[in-house]
């Protein structure tokens, strides 16, 4: 397994190797001493494995496609931003806007996620074992988020069709976000999501939140919500 020690090797050298992996090749990389570096393991385009040993800064694993990336530490703002597919696991905590605008793939955060987790998510699945901060899933359009802990203020503000499952308390719901019934199809979806994330939790202990679908078109009666 190629090892890139960022204490002695420029990040670009790792990225050159990461981006030269062709479809069908199954490469694995290890990255040492990230020391909070920005944009570690961004733009992967093949089903490689990347183990990052330490904490990273902004935008780790951004735009990920097909790769499985694990951060053995905490991640700064924008981890797995705009992910297309694959899987990103953060063993520690994630800073603000984790998984923002993601179109696919699975993001697992084993600690807490800060504010704006899953903002404008468009199909990504996000599992947070801890809690999430305020304005999470703001304008989320598609995909699913499962939170084992609590959610901060204004969860799911201006939500479209993403499904939000929270086991703990929700400090407040954002505009047009409401609690919805947990039907069998939702228990099944959540059960499958938790299993793929490797998280043990009873799906029946979660509550589901979704869009009331009243903000899709401007309605003067709702002007106070804008």
């Amino acid at each position, binding site marked *: 397994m190629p090892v890139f020690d960022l204490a002695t090797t420029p990040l670009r050298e790792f990225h050159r190797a990461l981006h030269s992996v062709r479809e069908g090749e199954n490469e694995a990389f290890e990255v040492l001493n990230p*020391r*909070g*570096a920005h944009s570690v393991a961004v733009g992967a385009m093949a089903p490689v494995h990347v183990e990052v040993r330490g*904490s*990273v*800064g*902004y935008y780790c694993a951004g735009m990920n496609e097909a790769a499985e990336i694990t951060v053995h530490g*905490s991640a*700064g*703002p924008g981890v797995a931003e705009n992910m297309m597919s694959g899987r990103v696991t953060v063993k520690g*905590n994630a*800073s*603000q806007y984790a998984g923002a605008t993601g179109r696919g793939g699975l993001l697992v955060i084993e600690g807490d996620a*800060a*504010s704006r987790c899953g903002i404008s998510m468009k199909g990504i699945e996000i599992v947070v074992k801890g809690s999430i*901060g*305020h304005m999470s899933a703001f304008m989320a359009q598609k995909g699913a988020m499962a939170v084992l802990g609590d959610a901060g203020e204004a969860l799911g503000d201006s939500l479209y069709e993403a499904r939000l499952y929270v086991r703990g308390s929700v400090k407040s719901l954002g505009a047009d976000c409401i609690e919805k019934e947990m039907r069998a199809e939702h228990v099944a979806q959540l059960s499958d999501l938790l299993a793929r994330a490797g998280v043990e939790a009873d799906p029946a202990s979660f509550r589901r939140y979704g869009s009331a679908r009243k903000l899709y078109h401007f309605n003067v009666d709702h002007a106070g919500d804008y």
Partner: protein
Amino acid sequence: MCGIVGLFLKDKTLEPELGGLLSDMLVTMTDRGPDSAGIAIYGGTEPGRVRLTVQSADPGGEFPKLAELAAAHGAAMARKDTHAVLTLPAEALPGLRAAVEAVPGLRIMSTGEAMEVYKETGLPADVVTRFGVRGMAGTHGVGHTRMATESAVTTLGAHPFSTGADQCLVHNGSLSNHNNLRRELVREGIRFETENDSEVAAAYLTARLAEGRNLGEALEGALGDLDGFYTFVVGTRDGFGVLRDPVACKPAVMAETDRYVAFGSEYRALVGLPGMDLARVWEPEPATVYFWER
């Protein structure tokens, strides 16, 4: 953007290294703001004596005059590049202060029993080298590297801002109600040196502390009275505080061990600290006051 750092030592054996640790933290944040940089450092106190930090754009021309004023008021003067630190008996401070203020080219950066402020335009690496910050010992300090948005790139527009004895503030963000608040504070008798929004935040805290509140209470008041984006790190003679606005889009990471409490705009700023592998690392919560006092 801007980069801010802070370090509050609990372990006395680290005190000789404060300047070096803080310099490394600040230099790591250079790419968050190239316009100006500054540092406030709290050294030891001597009973009955205070420090006055003075800056001049033309130290060669004006510091000889400052040296005369210092001698006349019984102050010892140590020159560091464009700054000079005058140490003098507390009772002589009002007289020397008035004399310094009467010289047009001299600007008072700070006063206090423990604190010295050094700030200039330029990159952090240049600024810490010019002032020999790496060699400074102390109990706590804050640093700032600026990407200017609210006012001009000048020495006085650089951070930290000091608006009261042994008080300083560094800010990442921008305030939206600073003009109104400045007018209110002027009515309370506070003097301002710049049009900068961060100076208003510093002065606000100074005004609240002057009412007898502690640092935590002053910061709590800021949550209600300051509008805009901010992550603040503030220092007092014995204290160190952190505050983020409720939206909390300006980044912040903290680390604590039994030897220190550290703040960085990014985790990168903290990785070089001793024992970071075992530190408790967390992101300060929005609208939550954090402060430590000796």
